[in-house]
């Protein structure tokens, strides 16, 4: 009897192994992300019949949307407006808000699983180059062009700043084609980089507003001192962690002003060029001499809170985004003592700046696409965006928002002198841009670059060696 049982056991185990192997083979052969989520073209084809066959927009009342948002002043400005949308449309909106890094990790995990947990999520061009490559984003052109779904006159695409709107488009060809192809996202704000400063501290120490990065170093040294109350004041604060945003945004603004291009037109990497080495050495000097010891791990959250706490004389960061916090006496110690200036010039007198555009995208696995589009349309409409800007979501992405009397009156008061903020932001907008190749693995390459910069800071030298090692690694990654 026992031997019979063993035979049965053997048969069951054999069947189990066959089942597992066959499932594995199926997994290896075809369970790919593109099969789980339809490719963009297919998604577009799926969306098209809706445009042609539907005469009336499908009812979305009673639908429930799930949004994954990144903790940001935009979210604070949006939350009070949600009930208004829910009342108007009968669509229920659930928000989940996470810090930036865990948020991006969760988005990737959800999108790649194809479960469609989130209908809409906060994103940016850099991440969308990966998401669009995976077929996880719903192309929005079909919704935008469908008169049953979009009132083109009221929505007024031409009112968006063309460069900012275009950043939501990509033709899926790696290393080229930003602004071409399908629309993967709509913008909700944009950030560029400013120098924020404390006029009273600069005046008390006899320091002029820095014009170049060498001036920043001199000022940072002079502005690091202990005040009469025994409090330590530091010269400068900026984000500085091992993260892709370091060479892409804040320090990226300095690198670009030094003429550094990650990849030039011939395809050569510019990470360990003399300009890049010079900029990195000076940047590390600025941080080492003008920031506290913990500066090696500052994210933008810490940079924002640090300057608002009044402990720093200058901030090299997206002060345009932070301005609503700096200027709010309930959240800031410096609300009556903050000024804004253009980012410093590079050694040849050039000034360029990075740009960050927060966008909203739709999950291609969403089961509530019409309702999701309705929300996107409402969110990025002229009226709603103005309300978010008045609630602290900066900077506007529509011309009409910038010119809105209430928004104008709000920003007019910001800065050391009336109109200073608006003038500086308008000037910076002329030189801000995305000067990186669109590629699904760009964040990985930039992470490696950021590591080399941080390594140089912690090692106290070897900038050239570190940057050249990073360049070699990135070249290898690009070849994989």
């Amino acid at each position: 009897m026992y031997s019979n049982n063993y035979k049965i056991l053997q048969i069951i185990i054999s069947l189990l192994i066959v089942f597992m192997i066959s499932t594995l083979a199926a997994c290896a052969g075809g369970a790919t992300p593109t099969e789980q989520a339809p490719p963009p073209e297919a998604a577009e084809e799926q969306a098209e019949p809706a445009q042609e066959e539907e005469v009336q927009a499908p009812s979305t009342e009673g639908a429930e949307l799930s949004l994954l948002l990144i903790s940001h002043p935009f979210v604070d400005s949006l939350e009070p407006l949600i009930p208004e949308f829910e009342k108007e449309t009968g669509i229920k909106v659930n928000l989940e808000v996470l810090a930036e890094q865990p948020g991006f990790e969760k988005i990737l995990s959800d999108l790649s699983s194809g479960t469609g947990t989130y209908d809409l999520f906060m994103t940016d061009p850099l991440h969308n180059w990966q998401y669009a490559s995976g077929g996880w984003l719903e192309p929005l052109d079909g919704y935008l062009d469908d008169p049953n779904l979009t009132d083109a006159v009221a929505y007024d695409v031409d009112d968006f700043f063309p460069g900012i709107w275009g950043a939501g488009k990509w033709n899926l060809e790696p290393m080229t084609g930003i602004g071409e192809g399908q629309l993967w996202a709509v913008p909700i704000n944009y950030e560029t980089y400013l120098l924020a400063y404390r006029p009273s501290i600069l005046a008390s120490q006899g320091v002029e507003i820095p014009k170049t990065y060498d001036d920043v170093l001199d000022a940072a040294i002079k502005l690091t001192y202990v005040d009469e109350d025994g409090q330590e004041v530091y010269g400068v604060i900026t984000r500085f962690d091992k993260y892709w945003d370091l060479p892409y945004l804040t320090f990226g603004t300095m690198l670009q002003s030094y003429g550094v291009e990650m990849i030039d037109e011939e395809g050569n990497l510019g990470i360990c060029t003399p300009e890049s080495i010079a900029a990195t050495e000076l940047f590390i000097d600025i941080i080492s001499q003008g920031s506290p010891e913990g500066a090696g791990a500052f994210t933008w959250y810490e940079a924002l809170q640090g300057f608002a706490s009044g402990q720093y004389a200058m901030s090299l960061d997206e002060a345009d985004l932070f301005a609503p916090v700096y200027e709010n006496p309930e959240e800031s110690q410096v609300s009556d003592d903050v000024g804004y200036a253009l980012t410093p010039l590079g050694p040849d007198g050039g000034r360029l700046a990075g740009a960050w555009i927060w966008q909203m995208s739709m999950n291609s696995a969403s089961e509530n696409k019409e309702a999701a589009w309705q929300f996107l349309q409402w969110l990025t409409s002229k009226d709603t965006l103005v309300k978010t800007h008045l609630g602290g979501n900066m900077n506007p992405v529509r011309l009409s928002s910038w010119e809105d009397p209430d928004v104008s009156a709000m920003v007019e008061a910001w800065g050391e002198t009336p109109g200073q903020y608006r003038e500086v932001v308008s000037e910076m907008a002329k030189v801000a841009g995305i000067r990186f190749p669109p590629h699904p693995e760009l964040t990985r390459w930039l992470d490696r670059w950021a590591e080399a910069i941080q390594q140089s800071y912690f090692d106290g030298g070897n900038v050239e060696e570190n940057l050249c090692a990073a360049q070699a690694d990135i070249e290898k990654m690009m070849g994989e």
Partner: protein
Amino acid sequence: MTELRLRHSFQHNFPYKPILMISNSKHSARSLTARLSDDKFQYYLMFLPALILLVGIMYPFITGVYISFTNEKLYLPTVEFIGFGNYVNLISDRVFQQSVVTVIKYTLLVLVIQIPLGFAVAILLDETSPLQKFFRSSVVLPLLIPPIIAGLMWKTMMQPEAGVINWALQSIGLPAFSWLSNPKTALFSIVIIDTWVFMPFAALILLAGLQSVSHEIIEASKIDGASTWQILRFVKLPWMTPYILLVMVFRVADSLKTFELIYPTTRGGPLNATRVMHVLGYEEAFRWANMGRAMAIIFMLWLISYIVSNRLVKTWEKSSEETKGEF
């Protein structure tokens, strides 16, 4: 010896011994007894949980191992089998090598700090005192806090500028410390947090060991004139070896796959100072979408953990038998 006896009977008689015990029960209902006496029915009943476990554990495991032999990237439409490609690349990868060294360093630090400290706490808790009940219940409080929350709590306290720990140090005239912000001190700072959370676990196991020492032997030692120190050194400590090994079995496995304290505090940084294998594997998967490499890292972590734990369990079993033989 209870656990050893059970293990032996399990090995020699599985699956029939437990079944015979059930069917011999006098209190079973007639029909149920009849059914349970049916060897085949019992056999399949016992087999079912094993089957579920086999599928539930082995299927994802084997799938993961298979993925480690592919170039799977989450956003790519095609997946190719590349054999040991990921493993070969990783072995020569500087960051991976560093992550292996870091996790070994972390594990050793955990053991070197937590076992003596846990032993000291266990000795204190073993002493009779009116406040003993309070101490015994309060010492385990950190174990009740989720590690992620503990990590966030300590991150706030360890802030170099605004943290309460540096404030306390400075208020007694000591210099501020960089804690989690400096690559030189970050790993050690996380070991401190780990110790705060998990040292009570070591203390509890070791306390159980101390309390299982036979009172007759201790009494006999006292009559022979042994001092407290001599009783600890020559009576209690040899008896404690299997308990120390048991703490090692748990803490080594936990420390090798540590993640929950690093993720909320440093996320592997600054630089790569706390980027242990588990964190690196997570980043490969959910930051860079590279599942093939991620699974290769996780599989190698499992292999290291399995080999070390297996060795420790065998040593513990041997030590348990030897210790019981001595007394």
